[in-house]
């Protein structure tokens, strides 16, 4: 019984606490700006509000548009089931699940993009084009990061890989882990549409990447989109935290608490980054992503000895 509970803990944390990341980021930014900021639980209130609303669909859209948020959320939940939270194992684990997790995230993105294109709006088309362009570079970086981790730990399942990233493993292949963590940090900021890549708070549709693709969604659909985005942030955040917080005591509650604290600091870190620097020019983003990929390649090379 206890093993079943432990196996479900990582997924339950993701499903329950993902919107809290957004709330924490907003609180951090408000702190730096000297504002009081929205309540920590505002993302939950927003989701509740959106779920009670009706949805409006443009006559020019088809089923693809309606399927976008549902498939997007379902795929992201699937990915969340495969990703461990630090020492807490994922709900599902099997050889090669890292490919499935990356694939599910890609599936979610694919549906967001075609739902955006389905509207026929110039803005959404522009956002879709940017999203695809950047993810074409972010995905290789993610795969290379997985490859480096698999190489360093000698495992092919995310739960096993992350289970083996302990303090001892850091002593052995610390440089590789550090490089991979840096690359995952870049992927995290890009995929979650944060500064310096995208500005989640802007109202300027011409500059948006992710937000502009979901402009036409409303009500529960938009709630799904928002929740899916928070969940995706949690998933990528856990990949990062699993490396940076190598607490693997074997006691599930200690490992879990350490990982949750790590997630908190990731959110605070994002808030700090957004408070102290401006967005990059869009042309510069691919360079940053290619850089992240290069870091992973370097990590793999370092692992070959």
């Amino acid at each position, binding site marked *: 019984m206890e093993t079943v509970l432990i196996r479900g803990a990582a997924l339950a944390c993701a499903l329950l606490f993902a919107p809290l990341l957004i709330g924490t980021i907003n609180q951090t930014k408000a702190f730096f700006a000297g504002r009081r900021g929205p309540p920590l639980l505002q993302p939950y209130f927003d989701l509740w509000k959106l779920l009670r609303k009706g949805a409006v669909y443009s006559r020019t859209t088809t089923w693809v548009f309606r399927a976008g948020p549902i498939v997007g959320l379902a795929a992201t939940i699937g990915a969340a089931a495969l990703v461990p939270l630090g020492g807490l194992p994922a709900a599902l684990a099997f050889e090669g699940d890292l490919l499935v997790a990356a694939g599910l995230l890609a599936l979610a993105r694919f549906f967001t993009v075609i739902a955006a294109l389905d509207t026929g709006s110039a803005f959404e088309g522009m956002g879709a084009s940017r999203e695809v362009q950047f993810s074409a570079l972010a995905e290789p970086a993610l795969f290379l990061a997985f490859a480096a981790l698999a190489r360093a730990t000698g495992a092919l399942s995310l739960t096993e890989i992350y289970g083996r990233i302990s303090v001892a493993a850091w002593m052995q292949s610390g440089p590789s882990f550090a490089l991979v963590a840096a690359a995952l940090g870049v992927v995290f900021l890009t995929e979650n549409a944060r500064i*310096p890549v995208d500005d989640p708070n*802007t109202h*300027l549709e011409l500059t948006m990447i992710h937000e502009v693709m979901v402009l036409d969604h409303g009500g529960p659909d938009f709630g799904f989109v928002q929740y899916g985005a928070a969940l995706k942030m949690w998933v990528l955040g856990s990949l990062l935290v699993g490396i940076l917080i190598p607490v693997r005591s074997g006691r599930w509650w200690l490992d879990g608490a350490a990982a949750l604290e790590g997630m908190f600091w990731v959110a605070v870190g994002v808030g700090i980054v957004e408070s102290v*620097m401006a967005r990059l020019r*869009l042309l510069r983003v691919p360079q940053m992503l290619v850089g992240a990929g290069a870091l992973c390649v370097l990590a793999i090379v370092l692992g070959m000895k």
Partner: protein
Amino acid sequence: MTRVANGEAVETRAIPRLPMEEFRATVIGAVEKGARIAALFARPPEMFVVLAHGLDGVLSLAATTAAASYPALTPDCPQAHWFEREIAETWKIVPEGHPWLKPIRFLSGAPAVTEYFQVRGEEVHEVAVGPVHAGIIEPGHFRFQCHGERAMHLEISLGYQHRGVERALAGGPDKRTVHYMETLAGDTSVGHATAYAQNVEALAGTAVPARGLTLRGIGLELERLANHTGDLGALANDVGYLPTASFCGRLRGDFLNLTALLCGSRFGRGLVRPGGVRFDADAAKVGEARKRLAAARRDVTGAVDLLWKTPSVMARFEGTGTVPRETCEDLGLVGPAARACGIERDVRLEFPSGIYRFAQIPVSTWGTGDVFARAYVRWMEIERSLEFVEEQLAQLPAGATREAPGRIEPGRTAVSLVEGWRGEICHVAMTDEHGRFGAYKVVDPSFHNWIGLAMALREQEISDFPLCNKSFNLSYCGHDL
């Protein structure tokens, strides 16, 4: 040509009526020699031009007969392009040979429903933005021709805010006139009201007391301070740089509150009246203002310095939305947009009136013509204006604040220029035989500068449009009138 100083009136009869050929040659010749068209307008059966000769500090007036059509000035003198479109739209006088003759305000028919430049070819796409925008701003329509992320051309279509102010001003001045002036462009209340007051004073021969002139100047500079500070914050916000954005939002309010301290209105409504100002500042008020100003100065310096010291901000500002100096000269841009191209163009320097005849403010220029230049010129102007206001508050002349203007003389024409925070404001008042406004022409700086924004966006990334737009921050209603 009749020569006239800023804020001076001449007999309308004395303005030379030139044959169209000579009129064209005069305007084109003067502009080639460095003059600028401050206003070009028709009041059938006549057409008038106000040329600004910056080097000499004089304005010159000329007139011609407005026929049903005439050979357009624009092909030889691009500065005239927007004026000629305005004339064609308002009075159905066709400038023949105008390269792109479309309405600018859509007086008849729906705004923005017209033809646009189009780029054809594989992968070229068109993006239409507005009139309803995502932020709380005025309505305007923007049409981009893009190739991927690259914007090849931007065309701006306005007119949504047209209220018919110039028509309503005819027959004035009356009780409503000054309120029209203060709301021509809501963020330039003091600027437009000052331009109007100077005209009435010129037509009525009023000598404004020194204290009134000084308080007016303080009001105008506070308006500049508030708007420039707000703009720098908005520029920071557009690149996602929160510290300056947050600080400047608050500091803009501090400057607005200083204006409110002077006259009870944060936007300077009710401050400027023909003959002087309506509110005096006693010693206690001046002391309070100086104290608040010193605090605001310290804060704004800290907040804005962050911009220049943050590499990620500078990377976005530098080299974005560059307007070449030649383009700026050809199109006759004004205000910070022109000074950012290295041109020393400032009414306070070239055509000083009011307090600026006695207290000069150094002109701030920067040569690169990009978003950084427009931002940095604003910052330098903030520093200069702060010095000016502090100095004037410290030595406020004694005496009355206002002398009620007398009777407005009939049959005269007055021209008034004011350097508003966006640039040159030009008002031309012509009185009829009863001493009423037969014609009142308003040229807001935005009228000159909207085309500058379109030029700044050539070959830029479309994602940089909001940044370029904010660096100009033009008025929709000031243009649409």
